[in-house]
């Protein structure tokens, strides 16, 4: 027992008094209620509307829940709900292609983010101690700058008479300036550019905590540098890799701004499909159904992410 107390590797869980003052419950209630009303509740509404029909009315869907109608009104209400929108999604290939394309793009970009982000994070940890806070700030700073601005900045570079083509022409790599915008390549560039900090920071945080003594022990026991990385550093950095992967993959699937500004109009990602359904077609029920299916698709990764975060929290508090 004295050993643990002396080493104090992890703070021991503190025994809490079972009784809680009333004020404490009020404290919990405030953010809790807010989230229930403004985060959880709306999903139920989306679900309901996905079961509705579009209508030229205000609001542009029917049926509308009117509690004044009493029990009879409620029964009518439920009878009017239908799964038409979901049937539409299942039958029309546009939607299925859109989902598939989104998942594919998200998967590929996440892989690219990992390939670029891991060496960057690793390089940051190997840098001299004094440099690390500066490097950290440098990686985080673009994140503080507007997302929209940064994507827009890429339009500058990628457009036909933009800098990338100017550079390529000057170097003689191409004869005619190729079109970069409205291509999948531009989307990948935009995604990797925007999400890089989300991949780098969790990996950096995990790598940074790795005790130097572990690598020295590996060397002492006969591992050259590359082998020590493979056998010790890499396995122990996996939690950070998972966190970064989930933190990137899930939102990329539903990404809208990047494919809209940088991509072409042939096949859309699901975020764009939802946007078009909602704003262009004014079909709120269909858009809601698209959202619900997307949510169902992402539910498992979201829950995995949340589980890992909670487990990390339990481990430390």
């Amino acid at each position, binding site marked *: 027992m*004295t*050993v*643990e107390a*002396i*080493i104090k590797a992890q703070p021991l869980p503190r025994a809490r008094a079972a009784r809680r003052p009333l004020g404490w419950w009020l404290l919990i209630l405030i953010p809790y209620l807010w989230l229930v009303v403004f985060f959880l509740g709306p999903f139920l509404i989306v679900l309901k509307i996905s079961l509705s029909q579009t209508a030229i009315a205000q609001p542009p869907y029917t049926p509308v829940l009117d509690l004044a109608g009493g029990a009879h009104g409620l029964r009518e209400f439920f009878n009017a709900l239908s799964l038409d929108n979901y049937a539409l999604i299942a039958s029309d290939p546009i939607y299925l292609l859109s989902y598939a394309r989104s998942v594919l793009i998200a998967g590929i970009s996440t892989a690219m983010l990992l390939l670029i982000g891991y060496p960057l994070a690793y390089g940051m940890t190997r840098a001299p101690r004094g440099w690390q806070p500066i490097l950290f700030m440098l990686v985080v700073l673009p994140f503080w700058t507007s997302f929209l601005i940064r994507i827009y900045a890429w339009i500058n570079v990628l457009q036909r008479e933009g800098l990338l083509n100017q550079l390529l022409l000057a170097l003689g790599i191409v004869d005619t300036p190729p079109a970069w915008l409205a291509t999948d390549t531009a989307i990948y560039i935009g995604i990797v550019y925007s999400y890089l900090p989300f991949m780098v920071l969790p990996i950096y945080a995990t790598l940074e905590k790795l*005790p130097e*003594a*572990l690598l*020295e*022990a*590996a*060397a*002492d*026991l*006969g*591992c*050259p540098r590359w*082998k*020590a990385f493979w*056998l*010790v550093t890499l*396995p*122990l950095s996996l939690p950070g890799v998972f966190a970064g992967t989930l933190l990137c993959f899930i939102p990329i699937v539903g990404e809208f701004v990047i494919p809209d500004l940088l991509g072409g109009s042939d096949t859309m990602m699901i975020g764009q499909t939802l946007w078009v359904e909602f704003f262009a077609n004014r079909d709120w029920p269909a858009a809601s159904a698209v959202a619900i299916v997307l949510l169902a698709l992402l539910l498992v990764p979201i829950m995995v992410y949340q589980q890992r975060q909670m487990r990390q929290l339990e481990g430390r508090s």
Partner: protein
Amino acid sequence: MTSVLDSSSAPARHQGISRPPPFRSDPATPPLVRFEAVGKRFSGVAAVEDLSLDIFPGEFFALLGPSGCGKTTLLRLLAGLEIPDTGRVLLDGQDLASVPPHRRAVNMMFQSYALFPHLNVEGNVAFGLRQDGLPKAEIAARVAAMLALLKLEGFEKRKPHQLSGGQRQRVALARALVKRPRVLLLDEPLAALDKKLRGETQFELMHLRQKLGLTFLIVTHDQEEAMTVADRIGVMDQGRLIQVASPPEIYEQPNSRWVADFIGDVNLIEGRLLASGAGCATIMSASVGRLEVATPAEASTGDTVWVALRPEKVRVSHTAPADGLGNCVAGKIWDIGYLGDISIYKVRLPDGFIMKASAANMTRLIERPFRIDEPVWLSWAGDAGVVLTR
């Protein structure tokens, strides 16, 4: 200080294990490890400075010193985790300058244990053997044997976070030992253990070394630990070796006031050398008066010297010693420290100098023979002290 070299004070279950004879360096045996004028600086500060040291095969060598004296740096230089700025490190006569740590035949037990959290006990212990490319059967056999030796049977599948501190320490030891290194390096291995466990583990380390016939190099700031386990001790301060000798020699024949003061308790009596001849020296001290020391002093008459006198060699008595037991002086008891097995008496001499004397509590009387402010006589034999010139 209790005599840790007396085997009768060892825990009962170690009685049967005979302590190996004190290490004697046969001049003909070449050193296993040699540090040649080694120097290492960090940010302009010298951690190790112009240090030369030989370590012989089969010995348990301890590097002892206060925090920041450079002992850990010296250890890491041998392991290859640091590169010397000046000088050479040789193993079996071979210069290790071009040999990276993963190819050196030395292995280290880290102070923090540095167990791989993602591997279980078996994986940790087998790790080094796997790098050598040994056949699987042999690895399994050696790992099993080492775990049995360190009483870790049954723990093979556990992960480090499921082990107690003492168990983790054994795994770290097993992991380093299983590779049968030429030298095993131990970086303050017992610092995190409580006193009882530390004592037991010290004896186990000595036993292991003898059984496996290996050479151990231990770094510690705990002098009792160094005295217990080591065949030879190298005392370091501020990057330099002050004295290298066996524990009895370090204790009874320190080469400087610093070493005398660092190891155990000591009375340092300053005085002028009156005469020095064949086998004895006479010193005049302002506090104690005239002292006779039965060892010659390497100094000239009139020089300032110090006599180092260990408290346990000083006798306290109510009356002046009748026999002409050389040196004696009168004073008053200033303070008493009761340690259970011994009592330490601080005696204030007329000029204000405080001398320490310690005596074993031979009887079980609660009432102690001496009280504070009581006038007493201190006396010691002529050969009880050592003359120091620095």
